[in-house]
């Protein structure tokens, strides 16, 4: 294991808490033991300092943790409420027993310390001390008496040898460990000692010397060792000889061992007792302080542990909550780390499985949605480009959807009527009533498949609609209606029928006309001279009538032939304005008092078309207009050319407007059909030919009422040939 791994392992909260706990236990043990003398003062001091510092650190950590938790709680972070609740519970659980233990420990401590001090014990010790003091005082007084005898015996002795002899005798006789004659200033003159004693050690101090100088006796009991004491007496030695300075005699006598031991015991007991008396309050305070420190350290440590435990419990839940938020926000790929193998771990694993499955389901849904979307787009494209109109009706018989073609066929914007009831549409669009009636009728009866044909009035006349309806397979009451505008088809069929009639007429009638005409002329030639004048006149009249009628029939057949004849279109650039000017010039003055006006767009482009065919179209229309105004005193003809650029294409529109009586309502639908005419003369094929040629050139023609009176025929041609 590397140092980095070791540091990482040690810096984990659990390990740190463990180390801190061990330290607190160790310090508590040491601080509790520090009242015994086997721990030095220095160690004691550093144990207290370390404990206080440790408690400060723990306190700071607790405060910081509380501050962080409080901030998280105010921010409403997930898990903070749970952490706070857990910590409060832990704190309460710790605080109550700790407080009780602390309270009773303090009580016990106080009582324990107070029980050390008993009045009887104190009195006994004091009595013992007094006894000891009295006894020692008696010994001391005895020795002082002895010393006065010794001083008398040596007061007038000045010879060193004699002094030495006497002192030796005294020492030996009275069991002195030392007897010394001192000068006035404390210098040793002669000394005699029985034990291995140091002269320096027993030298009198300045207090003793001061007393001697004052002529007093100095006596004291000294401790030599733990169980040995000695009695030291110094008395002044005055000589009867005048001029001799006083000297001092010092004697040291060890106390009997039994006395010394007893004295020492009494001394020690008294010392200990007085020390304890003095130390009573400091000791009480120290013990309470120690107890408080240990309790505080335990409380703080358990509090830190509660922080750690609550975080450990709340963290997976907060991560789980964050995960659910992510999922709620749509992030189904969220995967959470599994914190442990316990129930929370199982919960997190289940969450991960759930998000995985949700993600998979969403992918499938996306895929399915994409496919549906593609199908819908495909269907919309098909419907949009379908030549048939398609509408759908829901179970409430309301319009649900429609394709663009439906609106175009019906010349209304059906999108504005989405969700409208079909029954209402019947009355909203009166011209389309048959159409909506058919749908309503079939849909209200839930007919599975039906077909109908209806004619409605469109903007350009009658429209023939073929309608088919089908109920949707999974939505029994919803119906899809498909309808087609077959007006043009019917018209084409009609025109084809008329063409066939014309062709047959031309073929069947035209052939016998020439022999009839020739035969009539031959009859006239052969029999004219053979009959009288009266019959000649009849013959002349009848043959002329036959020839004229045959000629008329020929013209009619020719017209039919023209109508039936296939038009060969030869497309070349055609200037419409020039063509219209030619037509106007051709018919100028044909009709008296007819004012002809040309309003031509000068910027009109040339178009790819057949000039001869167009000339016939415009010629027929101008002739038609003039013929409509033949009976009028004032007539006017206006020819307009315009360009129309629309999204659907670039067109040229030519309007030929007359001020005639207008189109009769009964003819409006069949105006361009063969043999439809309001005029007395004419084949009735002019407008039919106009329509046929125009449509062959890729254009359209229609008629509108002119305001205030008259009719305008409108020809619209594409600029580019189809």
């Amino acid at each position, binding site marked *: 294991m590397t140092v980095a791994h070791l540091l990482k392992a040690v810096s984990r909260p659990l390990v740190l808490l463990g180390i801190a706990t061990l330290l607190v236990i160790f310090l508590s043990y040491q601080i509790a033991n*520090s*009242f*015994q*003398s086997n*721990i*030095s*003062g*220095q160690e*004691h*001091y550093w144990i*207290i300092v370390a404990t206080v*510092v440790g408690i*400060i*650190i723990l306190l*700071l*950590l607790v405060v*910081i*943790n509380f501050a*962080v938790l409080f901030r998280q709680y105010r921010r409403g972070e997930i898990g903070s409420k749970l952490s706070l609740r857990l910590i409060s519970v832990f704190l309460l659980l710790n605080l109550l027993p700790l407080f009780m233990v602390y309270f009773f420990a303090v009580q016990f401590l106080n009582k324990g310390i107070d029980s050390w001090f008993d009045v009887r014990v104190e009195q006994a010790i004091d009595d013992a*001390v007094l006894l*000891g*003091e009295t006894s*020692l005082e008696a010994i001391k007084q005895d020795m002082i008496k002895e010393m006065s005898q010794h001083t008398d015996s040596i007061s007038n002795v000045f010879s060193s040898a004699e002094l030495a002899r006497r002192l030796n005798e005294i020492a030996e006789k009275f069991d002195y460990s030392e007897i010394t004659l001192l000068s006035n200033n404390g210098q040793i003159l002669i000394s005699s000692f029985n034990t291995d004693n140091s002269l320096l*050690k027993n030298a009198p*101090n300045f*207090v003793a010397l001061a007393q001697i100088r004052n002529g007093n006796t100095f006596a*004291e*009991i*000294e*401790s030599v060792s733990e169980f040995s004491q000695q009695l030291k007496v110094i008395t002044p030695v005055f000589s009867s000889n005048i001029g001799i300075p006083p000297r001092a005699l010092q004697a040291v006598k060890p106390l009997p061992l039994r006395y010394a031991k007893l*004295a020492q015991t*009494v*001394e020690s007991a*008294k*010392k*200990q007792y*007085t*020390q*304890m*008396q*003095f*130390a009573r309050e*400091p*000791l009480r*305070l*120290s013990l309470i*302080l*120690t107890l408080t420190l240990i309790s505080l350290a335990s409380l703080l440590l358990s509090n830190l542990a509660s922080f750690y435990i609550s975080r450990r419990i709340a*963290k997976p839940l907060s*991560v789980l909550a*964050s*995960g659910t938020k*992510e999922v709620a926000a749509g*992030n189904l*790929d*969220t*995967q*959470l*780390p599994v914190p442990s193998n316990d129930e929370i771990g199982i919960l997190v694993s289940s969450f991960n499985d759930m998000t995985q499955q949700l993600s998979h389901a969403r992918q499938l849904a996306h895929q399915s949605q994409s496919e549906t979307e593609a199908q819908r787009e495909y269907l919309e494209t098909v419907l949009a480009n379908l030549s048939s109109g398609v509408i759908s009706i829901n179970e409430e018989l309301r319009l649900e959807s429609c394709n663009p073609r439906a609106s175009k066929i019906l010349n209304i914007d059906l999108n504005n009527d989405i969700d409208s009831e079909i029954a209402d549409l019947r009355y909203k669009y009166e011209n389309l009533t048959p159409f909506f009636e058919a749908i309503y009728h079939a849909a209200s009866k839930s007919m599975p498949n039906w077909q109908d044909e209806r004619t409605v009035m469109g903007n350009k006349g009658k429209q023939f609609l073929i309608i088919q309806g089908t109920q949707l397979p999974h939505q029994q009451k919803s119906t899809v209606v498909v309808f087609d505008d077959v007006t043009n088809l019917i018209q084409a069929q009609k025109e084809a029928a008329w063409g066939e009639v014309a062709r047959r007429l031309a073929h069947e009638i035209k052939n016998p006309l020439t022999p009839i005409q020739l035969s009539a002329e031959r009859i006239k030639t052969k029999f004219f001279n053979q009959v009288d004048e009266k019959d000649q006149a009849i013959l002349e009249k009848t043959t002329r009538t036959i020839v004229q009628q045959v000629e008329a029939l020929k013209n009619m057949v020719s017209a039919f032939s023209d109508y039936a004849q296939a038009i060969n279109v030869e497309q070349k650039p055609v200037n419409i304005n020039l063509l219209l000017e030619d037509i106007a010039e051709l018919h100028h003055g044909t009709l008296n008092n007819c004012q002809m006006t040309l309003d031509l767009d000068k910027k009109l482009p040339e178009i790819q078309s057949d000039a001869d065919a167009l000339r016939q179209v415009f010629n027929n229309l101008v002739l038609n207009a003039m013929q409509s105004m033949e009976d009028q005193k004032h007539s006017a003809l206006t020819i307009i050319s315009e360009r129309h650029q629309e999204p659907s294409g670039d067109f040229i529109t030519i309007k030929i407007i007359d001020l005639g009586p207008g189109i009769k309502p009964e003819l409006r639908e069949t105006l361009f059909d063969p043999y439809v005419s309001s005029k007395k003369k004419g084949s009735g094929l002019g407008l039919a030919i106009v329509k046929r040629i125009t449509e062959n050139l890729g254009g359209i023609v229609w008629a509108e009422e002119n305001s205030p009176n008259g009719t305008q025929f409108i020809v619209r041609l594409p600029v580019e040939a189809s």
Partner: protein
Amino acid sequence: MRLTSENNISLKKKSFAKISLTILFVISLAFSITCSAKNPTRFSVINVTASASDKGIQTLSRFQLSLSTRAYDAIDHGVPVDIVLSYAEPKKRFWGTSYKTIDKKTFRLSRHVLSDNYQLHDSTAFQTHQFITIDEALKHISIFQIKNLDNISSTEIAVRVHLDTFNLPPQIRASAFFSGSWRHDSLWTVWNISS
């Protein structure tokens, strides 16, 4: 998507901030305690005469010693107190002056119950003196303490006298450590050595 990495970074930052704050607080606390203990209390060094001789440096010191009421009371109750004279060689460092202790002299002052005297035991000289009063014993320490010192390379000598609370009885040690009435310290005073 993993939610752990961002949470871990945030937690590490928070832990780092916590530890930094704690260390800062403890350092500032220690600094303030150290600064507060920098004033001499009750004991002072009045004069030190240090002179070089063949046997080394001979010092003659005089002190001003006065005990607090608490200390008087303690001695009267039989608590022995140690008064320590310390001699050191001052050395200039970049943070200030360090003192390398070269010698010590300890006096233990205690009360003798049976004789009702005060004993002053000189642990260096193995001598015990008896005094009627505590002040007499203190006077004995304060006047002309002679000390011969060897192995001094510096031209200065630092002297200090203090009451050693570490050697008080365990029962009163804890309160004495942090009580001002037990603080008796002259702190180090520096004196020149005359040749």
